[in-house]
């Protein structure tokens, strides 16, 4: 099952857990499954049906341009980080 790393400010919703394993063929499915176990996460990360624009998703070390539609593997590692640009 993919493992989702929980951002520090959301860990109050996972009982302090830094990582949660959750089923899901795409990030959206994984987030839906997560929401069932840890209600409230969804609302913190998603606006409308999109990931918050100031959050980027990193899957297996790469920033995903597909964001919530990113397909996940059984052993995918998912991070939510600040969206960056540069100078």
């Amino acid at each position, binding site marked *: 099952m993919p493992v989702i790393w929980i951002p*520090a400010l959301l860990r109050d919703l996972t009982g302090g857990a830094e990582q949660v394993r959750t089923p899901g063929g795409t990030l959206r499915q994984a987030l839906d499954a997560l929401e069932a176990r840890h209600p409230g996460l969804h*609302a913190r990360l998603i606006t409308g049906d999109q990931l918050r624009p100031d959050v980027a998703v990193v899957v297996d070390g790469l*920033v995903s341009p597909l964001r919530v539609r990113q397909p996940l593997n059984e052993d995918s590692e998912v991070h939510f980080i600040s969206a*960056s640009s540069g*100078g």
Partner: protein
Amino acid sequence: MSADPQDSVQEAAPAYRVIGTRPIRQDGLDKVTGRAVFGADVRLPETLYGAVLRSPHAHARLLSIDTRQAEALPGVKAVVTAADLPAITLEGDWGDNLRYQSQNTLAADKVLYYGHAVAAVAAVSPHIASEALRSIQVVYDPLPAALDVRQAMREDAPILLDTLRTDSLGQRGNQPTNVASHARFERGDLEQGFAQAALVVEREFETATVHPGYIEPQNASAIYQSNGQVTIWCSTQAAFGIRDDVANVLQIPVGQICVIPTEIGGGFGGKNSAYLEPLAALLSKKSGGRPVKMAMNYSEVLAATGPTSASYIHVKVGVDRDGLITAAQATLVYAAGAYPGSPLWGGMPAIFGAYRVDNLRVDGYDVVVNRPRSGSLRAPGAANAVFASETVMDEICEKLGMDVLEFRRLNGVRQGDRRSDGVPLPRIGFHEALQAARQHPHYTAPLGGPHRGRGVACAYWGNHGGKSSATASVHADGSVSLLEGSVDVSGTRTSLAMQLAETLGIPLEAIHPRVADTNAVAYTEGSYGSRTTFATGWVVYELGQKLIALLSERAAILWETSPDQVQFAEGVFSHKGGEKRLAFKELAARLDETGSPLMASVSLAAGGAGPAFAVHLVDVEVDPETGKVQILRYTAVQDAGQAIHPGLVEGQIQGGVAQGIGWALHEGYVYDEAGRLLNANLLDYRLPTCLDVPAIEPVIVEMPNPRHPYGVRGVGEIPIIPPPAAIANAIARAVGVRLTQLPMSPGRVLAARLARDA
């Protein structure tokens, strides 16, 4: 397409033909002869000149604006205020963002900083335009200002934005506030980590607002035709970003706007977003479609375009007896300026980015203050953060009596370690850079005099990938025109053309690179984030592969065989197992026989930017009488990944270090108590001259980025990060005082020294 980089790794160092050489830049000739057309050099018939009226107050209610007298002035063709901007009705955070952008273009009911635009005019000459500004009557109701982040965070602070509530990743505060957001990285057990420490160093820091300081002021020329089409010429790093900003502020579709990026006189992050462009377009519309040209003067550049954040930073680091870090904690409070959006996203990952820390907490607060809206500046938010952390690390080394490079060898991150935000690091060149610094003669050279010291500082910077696009056309003489979406700030037309020449196996001179306007290629992110040679370079590589595949099909037609019978190597197509061969140029000459001309396009989003690491060494001499710091020697070691054009890489390193030296020693905004900017000119806001900057020696370490076809990492931003810390550490070693404020002006150095002696 979304590129999967993992299998494009080139393991053994490949022998390149073009990559790694130092050709003369293709745009160089126009630049040394004065023919290059920068934004303000654009000349259109019937041009009007625009100018902007700016607030003399840091914080005030706008009671009324009377423009009648200005409009009546002969030669004045248009006057605009916020009343001419469309209301933005979109709800939510994104709507707020757009409203902030609109209000920063022209203040609506409040001015939030000295220099905030309140009206703009267009007239037949720049002199008439400025006279018209003087005849506009504005009635202000001044309000108390909040200039400093800690002042702005107090309960009784004046509130800048009535609707603002603190956002902690989706959780909202319920009180009016100036704290726009709170972010956090955390792992391990901080208390336990500090309990294990044999030594804990804890310090507070303050850094000034500084400006990118490009020499060319912002400019824009625009034509708004009666059919709704808008054409904009401007100096920008991000043509598509400007297009989107103008579309948002004027609430028109992007398809109505074409942005033509001109040559650009420096950006460093400061020319990513729009200031004058929507105004020029609006003034053109109001004057019946005449071209309107605008250029800021330098006072406007300093007072009203994005500087980087002033900051307050608290750092606490614990180490065990052997110097191993047991815990690290930091709080970063960044001044966003008038609207939310300081570069905490850059500062928070950077502050402990070079270190392996198991017990870690980093908190960031984005705070609005009555200063210009902050923008990006080269590795945004990182140099001030690393000034704080690297001076603490140096103090730890000093107290432990430990070699500073040994400390980094012990604690420095390696492949597989996790960044502060949790993401594991791919292959990096930090330890190779540390090794190169240790072996450099500078590290062991005698200092050669009293009041001298040597400082070291390191840095991590993530770099950025993102979306890029390009198109290439093959011509009958074997030349290839390359139309690419990345603005060329520093020679990237050449570093991109070199990657295409390498891929196609043809001479660099056969490639004619050109920066496209927003109607000529698909979306391309701006030239920021050290991304152009990396991400657009990758596009260009894929483009080369695509051309080779298409040309193989054409060779197959000529040879009356199937494309899979054609192979390509080193610029030559050949028939498998046969005698037939055609060099790229020969095949190009025969395209007509194969049915049609040939072009190809590629767009991609590059996810695998390679993290950069830098190790800087600096020697300084401190004048004991005046506190003035003279830089004697500077060596900057950097993992550049594969250097496509080493000369351009050196230029990035030297330029970044010089900028960091200015930040360290003398740049900084000075406000009076009412919030008026006192040094809004290039005499009093002092950029480094060639007398302030020594010969900077760049040392390039090349650890190829495994996630780019040619191993490119991105090099432009990281060189600005270490200088303030390295110089502070050198001052500490020279005269025994630790500076905790930027800039480290002679007065501050002297005061610290006198305070210690007293």
